C-alpha cells in the first residue's frame, strides 16, 4: 500500500484562486480592496525572501501590498508608532510583522500592539485566547493551512483521534485548538511525552511540528492514517549537497499512511495562501461584510 500524496502546491493554488475571486467581488460589490502591510526589520536573508514572496503573491491576487522596511537598529518607539498608524489606516486590513525581530525589540510587545482584527498572523494574545475558547478569531496561517488540507481530504474530522507532535505557539498549540473546534479527540505530544511511538500509533491524524529531521518513522504510524508534516529541515547529503526534509521519514511513513504531505510541496505553500485568505477575512470583518467570510469552503 502506498499513501495518497496531498499536494499542497496545487491546493494552495486553488486557495489563491478563491482569494482572488473574493477580492474581485469585494472590489466590484463594495468598492473595497483588501490591503496587507508587511513590516520587516533588519536584513535577515530568509526573512527578505519571505517578505518578497508575500508581497508578490498579495499583488497577484489583486490586493494592495504595503511594505515597510527598517534598519536592524530601529528603535521600539519607531516600530510601535508605525503599527499605530497602520492600525488607524483604513486601507490596511492585515498587518504582519516578520519574525524574528532583532534582539533589542520585544516581540510580544510589538505583536500585541497590532489591532487584533488586523492581526493576520493570529499571534495577538487576544486572538490566541479567542481561538482557545472556540470563538471567532484570526487563525495562525500554518495550522490553518493544515486544517484546510485535512478537511479537503477527509470531509468531516469529527470523532477522529488526532495527535499533534510539538507544542509551539506558532503551530502545535493553535493546531490542537483547531482540531478540537472540528470535534477531533486531540492529544498534544511533546518532548516530555513518555511513550511517543505508542501515542502516535493511536492516531487517525498525525500532525508533526517539532523541527527535528525525519524523527517520525513509519512504524509509529497506524496503517491508513493521515500524516501532515509541518517540518522543514535542511540536512546535509553527500558531496556537500543539502536537501529539505520534514519531521517525518517520508518513505517509511508513505508506505503505511493513507495520505501524506510531502516536503517540500506540502504544508509550506499553504502558509502564504492562508495569509492572503486571512487578509480577506479581516477585510470582510472590518467592513461588516461577515456573510461572505467563508469564501474558502
Amino acid at each position, binding site marked *: 500500500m502506498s499513501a495518497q500524496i496531498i499536494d499542497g502546491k496545487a491546493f494552495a493554488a486553488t486557495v489563491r484562486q478563491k482569494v482572488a475571486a473574493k477580492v474581485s467581488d469585494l472590489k466590484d460589490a463594495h468598492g473595497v480592496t483588501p490591503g496587507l502591510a508587511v513590516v520587516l526589520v533588519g536584513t535577515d536573508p530568509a526573512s527578505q525572501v519571505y517578505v518578497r514572496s508575500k508581497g508578490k503573491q498579495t499583488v497577484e491576487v489583486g490586493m494592495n501590498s504595503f511594505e515597510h522596511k527598517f534598519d536592524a537598529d530601529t528603535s521600539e518607539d519607531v516600530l510601535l508608532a508605525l503599527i499605530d498608524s497602520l492600525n488607524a489606516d483604513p486601507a490596511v486590513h492585515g498587518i504582519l510583522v516578520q519574525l524574528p525581530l532583532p534582539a533589542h525589540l520585544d516581540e510580544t510587545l510589538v505583536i500585541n500592539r497590532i489591532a487584533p482584527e488586523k492581526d493576520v498572523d493570529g499571534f495577538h494574545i487576544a486572538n490566541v485566547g479567542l481561538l482557545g475558547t472556540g470563538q471567532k478569531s484570526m487563525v495562525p496561517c500554518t495550522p490553518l493551512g493544515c486544517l484546510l488540507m485535512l478537511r479537503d481530504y477527509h470531509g468531516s474530522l469529527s470523532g477522529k483521534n488526532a495527535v499533534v507532535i510539538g507544542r509551539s505557539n506558532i503551530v502545535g498549540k493553535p493546531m490542537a485548538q483547531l482540531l478540537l473546534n472540528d470535534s477531533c479527540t*486531540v492529544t498534544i505530544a511533546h518532548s516530555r511525552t513518555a511513550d511517543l511511538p505508542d501515542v502516535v500509533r493511536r492516531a487517525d491524524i498525525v500532525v508533526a511540528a517539532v523541527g527535528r529531521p525525519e524523527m517520525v518513522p513509519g512504524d509509529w504510524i497506524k496503517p491508513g492514517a493521515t500524516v501532515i508534516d509541518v517540518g522543514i529541515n535542511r540536512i546535509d547529503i553527500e558531496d556537500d549537497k543539502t536537501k529539505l526534509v520534514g519531521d517525518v521519514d517520508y518513505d517509511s511513513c508513505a508506505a503505511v499512511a493513507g495520505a501524506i504531505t510531502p516536503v517540500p510541496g506540502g504544508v509550506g505553500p499553504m502558509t502564504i495562501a492562508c495569509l492572503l485568505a486571512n487578509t480577506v477575512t479581516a477585510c470582510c470583518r472590518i467592513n461588516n461584510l461577515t456573510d461572505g467570510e467563508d469564501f474558502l469552503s
Partner: protein
Amino acid sequence: MTKKTVNHRQLLGAPVRDHIIDEVRTYVDAAGKMGKIVSIAVDGTAEVEVYIRNQARMAARVGLDFDQQMWSRDITQDACKSRIQDMNDDPSVLGIIIQRPLPPHINIRSLQSAVHPLKDLEGMNPASIGNIIYSDIALVPCTAAASVEMIKATGLALPGLEVVMIGHSEIVGRPAAMLLMAEGATVTICHHMTRSVAMHSRRADVVLVAVGSPHLIGADMIKPGAVVIDIGINRIVTDDDTSHIVGDVDTAAVAEVAGWITPVPGGVGPVTVAVLMRNAKTAHMRQTQIGWRA
C-alpha cells in the same frame, strides 16, 4: 456523631484550600491596602447567592475587602459594560468577578472581554486565556487551576504523565488541558464526539471529568492506581425524594480502583474559591509591576 473512617484514597479539597489561603493571607498582611474585590451578579438566584457568600467568606479569611453588587434585571448590556469600564479605571478596585448565569439579554463574553486583563480575577478575558495557552500562567480560570492543584496534591510529578481531560468547555476543560500541558503532561482532550472515551481514559495516569453528567465515569474506565479528579457538580433526586450533590464519577465504584479520587462535594470545589483569592494576589503583583500601584 459516628466516627468517620479515614479513606486514604480520598483527595480532599480543604487542606489544599487552606494552604493557598494561608499563602495569600501572608501576602495581604505584608502588602497592606490592596483595594477591593468587586463581585457582580445580575438578578442573582439563590445558588448564585451561595457562591457569593462563599467568596465573601474567603475574602474575609485572606483579609481582602469584598464588595458584593447585585444589579437589577433590567440593566442593559451597555450599562453593564460602562460600569465595568469605570471599575477598570478605579484604583480602589483590585479585581472583578462576574457571576454566571446572567440574564439572556446580557452577553457574558462581551462583558468578560470588557474586564481589564489585569483585573480579571476569573481568568476569563480572551487575553488571560491566550496567556495560558502561551504558558504565561498568571490569572487562571479558577476551576481549571483548582483541578491542577488537586493533582499536585498527590505528589506526583506532572512531566510525562498521561492525562485525559473529559469535557472541552471553554471555562474548565480547555484551560485545564493547557495548564497541564504547560506543566509537561501529555494531554488528551475528549468530548461528546469522542468515539470511545474509555479507550482513552483507561490508559491515563490522571483522568479529569467536567461534563455535568452524574455517574458517567465507572470503575471499568479507570486504570488501577490512577488519579481521578471529579469536577462535575450535579443535583440529583433519589427515590426517597431527597436531593444530593454528586459529581460526574461513580465515586464509590471508582474508589475501589483509583489511587486517588476527589469527592463531590468537598474535592475541587473548595479549592476553586481559594484560587480566586490567589488570583487577587497575582493581580496585585502584576498591577504593582506595571506601575498602577505604588
